[in-house]
Structures are given as C-alpha cells and as structure tokens.
C-alpha cells in the first residue's frame, strides 16, 4: 500500500442552509466510506481561508494564500491506496465536484533508507 495526499481545492461552500446540510452529510458519508474500505490513513483537517505568503530572498510577507481563490486548498486528507490510479479513482467520490471544486491527488514520496 502507498500513501497519498488529497488536497481539496476550490469549491463553493455557500448555499441555502438545506443545501449546506446536504453537502455536509455527503462529506461525512464519503469519509466514512473511505474509512470502511480501509483507505483512510488520516482524515486530515480543513484550512482557514486566510494566511500569509512569505516569498523571495527578501522574505516579504504578504496577505493571503498564493493561489487564486478558486484553486485555494481548503483542506487535506491522507489516503492509503494500491497505486496512484486507485487513489485517483477513490477521489471521484468526493462531494467537492458538485460545488465546482477539485481534488489534487499527490503520492507521498516513498523513502526506503
């Protein structure tokens, strides 16, 4: 088994209260599914929308994440899967796609020392 990081990018979380409740239920159900199939290594965390970017040799500090709002990372989850193809397949169940967001699937580098 290898490990992968799901980065949740973008996705509109606004909506009517009823829609928000539906969205929440879908996420909880999806996470549970990943847990039940043994693919959930660590559920991860949501990230605050704001932040600072420190950049350059001058180490200038500016407000906000580097990415465009629509590509901003909103949270992450650690996944276990056979290979990258399976990890990508697993991400398809993520409810973020209904809200115009996307999942970035990144293999965690295997280090054998």
């Amino acid at each position, binding site marked *: 088994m290898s490990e992968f990081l799901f980065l949740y990018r973008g996705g509109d979380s606004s909506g009517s*209260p*009823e829609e928000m409740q539906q*969205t929440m239920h879908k996420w909880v159900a999806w*996470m549970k599914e990943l847990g039940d199939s043994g693919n959930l290594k660590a559920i991860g965390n949501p990230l605050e929308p704001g932040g600072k970017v420190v950049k350059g040799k001058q180490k200038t500090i500016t407000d906000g994440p580097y990415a465009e709002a629509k590509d901003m990372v909103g949270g992450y989850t650690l996944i276990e899967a056979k290979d990258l193809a399976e990890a990508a397949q697993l991400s398809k169940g993520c409810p973020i796609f209904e809200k115009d967001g996307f999942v970035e699937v990144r293999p965690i580098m295997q280090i054998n020392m």
Partner: protein
Amino acid sequence: MEPRVFELDEHFFRHESGRIVAALTRIFGVHNLALAEDVVQDAFCRALEVWKFRGVPENPSAWLMATAKHRAIDVLRRERTARTFAPELGRLIESEWTLAPVVHELLDAAAIQDDELRMMFSCCHPRLAEPAQIALILHILCGFSVGEIAAAFLSSNAAIEKRITRAKKVLAGSKKLFELTATDFSGRLSAVHRALYLLFNEGYHGASSESAVRTELCGEALRLAGLLRRHPLASTPSTLALGALMCLHAARLPGRIDAAGELHTLFEQDRSRWDAQLICEGQRLLDLSATGSELTEYHVEAAIASVHARAQSTEDTDWARIVSLYDMLMAIRPSPVVALNRAIAIAQHQGPEHGLETIRGIDGLERLAAYPFYPATLGELELRRGEPTIARNHFCEALALARSPMERRFIERRIAACQNDSDVVLMEHVSLRE
C-alpha cells in the same frame, strides 16, 4: 480517525438559521437584519468546513451558536462606530470590558427563546400583504432560500426575490422586533395565525406536485404553531385550535399524495396510511382549545377534520354534522370556497342534485372562475347523477385550469372515469383558501 457520527435532525441547518438570525437581529437591531444573516451564513460555512472533517459535534446547536456569537462580537467591535445597533446594547459595546459579557448574556439560551416568536410576529407586519408575510417567515425563520421558496410556490426567483426584498424593507423600518407585551398583541396574534394557516394550506392544497415540498411546508407550519403553543401569552384557544387543525390535516397527507406524486381525494384515500399519532395529537389540541368564549374558523375547521379523522370510511362519516359545521363556518368566515365545500358535504348527505342546487346559489361564484376544483366538483356531481356527458365537459373545463401536472393527471383520470361511469369519487374538501 473517522468522524464521530452524531445524527443531525432533518432540516437542522434551516431551523437553526431561523433561531440564530432572530437572536442576532435582536442584538444588532432589526435594521441590521442583513448583517445578522451574513453572520449566520459565515457561522454555517465554518460549521460545514469543520464538520466535514470532524463529523457533527455532540451539541451542534450550541456549537453553531458559539460560532455565531464570536462572529457577532467581531462585527460589533469592528462596526460600533460606523453603525447603530439595538438600543438595549447601549454604551455597553463601547468598552472591551462589557462587549463580550453583554453579548453572551443576550444570547443566553433562555433569552433567545422568545426571539423566534418575536421575529414571527414582526414578519406579520400589518403593512405587509399575506403572501409577503409568508415568504418572509419561510425565508427568515425557516431558512428557505429565495430559490427554494420560488420552487415551493411555483413562482419565479425574481418575483420571490422582489417580494422578500420589499418585505425586509418594511421589517427594517419597524425599528425593533415586535414586543410580546405590546398592546396590539392579540391583533398581531391573529395575523400570525392567518399567516401560519396559509403557509400550511400552501403545503396541503398548493400548486407543488412534489409530496416532499408539501410535507415540508406543512411541517414548518406545524413547527411554528408549536412554538406559539409553548409561549404562555401566545397559547390561546385559537392557537390550540389552529394546531389541532394542522395536525388533523397533516395526518391525512400520506394518503392524499402518494409516493408517485398522485393526488387522491378523501374518498379514495387509503385510510390506513393516515398518521394515527398526529390524529391523536390533533384531537388532544382540539379538546384543549374548547375553552373561552371565542369560536374561530380554526375551531370549526379542526372540528370538521376531526369528524373525518374519526370515520372509518366516507359512508361512515357523519355528513349531517359536517354540513352544520360548514354552516357555522359560513357564519364566521363566509367565502365562495367555504360555500363550495358546504355544497360537497350537502351532496354527500342528501344527494348530488341538492349539492348542485346549493352550488348554483353560492354568492360570488364568479370568484371561483379560475379554480380548477370548482368545475371539477360540478363534474363529480353530474357524474354521480348519471350525466357523464355533462360531467365530461366540466372536467375538460377543469383540465384547462389545472395548475400543476399532478392536478392535470388527476383531472384526466376523472375524464377517463366519465367513459366508464363506474368509478365515481367525490372531491376531497377543497382548499379553504380564497
């Protein structure tokens, strides 16, 4: 590792939205309603982000309120010089020493209990037409978005948006939320009754053909009527009668529209699908409402529904009693629709000729011209009288007036019945709404 799964009540977000918006509006002042709504939206977005990963917390309601409270304190701190807030806050928000404690105190669970009620009364402002009051209640207290209200009422988003925006302006102009100790309390309470009654009717008789939408509207009306009952000042005999009427009708809803979205009249309904628990609760409230001297239309309508609920079948129904109750209703709140219902009961009691004759004598019959169940009733009575050709013409007229695919399919079934005149049913008591 997995989120702990605490189940949320159905429509939890919607109901909490109403509760917290009402509480924050008291603190911010009703002129800052939009600000209160923004704070609640923020708190909900945050809940969504966190709960996605962590699951629903053990006390989600307190979690949301605490989050909203923090946001509210931020807003008050940031805007205390730019805006005016509720006079109750006074100068207490000027100092960091008093700001947070006063907000905590004002958002105490006991303090916010009345807020939803005060918001409900505020939404029934006399300057607002009834449809605007209902839209406002659904939007603010029930957390429906403009799109959801438009879908429930088969209206356009733009029309509902306009209605709500105007209504909010009137609400904002009222300076503060309605006081439950105000001298015009009883007058406003009648307006609240009427709005909740109409909201319920929209669910029960309205244009939407989705049984889920109807159940939700009826469910909201029941919930808000329950809030009224829990308050000592608002729990009057007419409030109890209104609750009885809603329970007794809602009990029949599972029989009225089936899972496939087909409408069934009272006469064809499978009575085993009626909700026995709601019938019990309705009867209990009806008994409790029989105090005091005031006899309202809600008492009479609940009494009619109670006669139906007790009957095993249409044949077993005490139609004489129903006719006399309709006589009473005509004396309290006469309308062509009530008169039409009375005629249906007379037809059931004394035969279709009597029913048709009664219909011909209805005052203001022209006001029913656009109502599909008026020609449909004529059709049913003609069919029962053995006049399928005349009946068919009436049903065709009704078909042209149908407001939804569900009504259309229902009337088409009746037209088909005119061909093989065996399958005779009579209309359920049609909407009492004018």
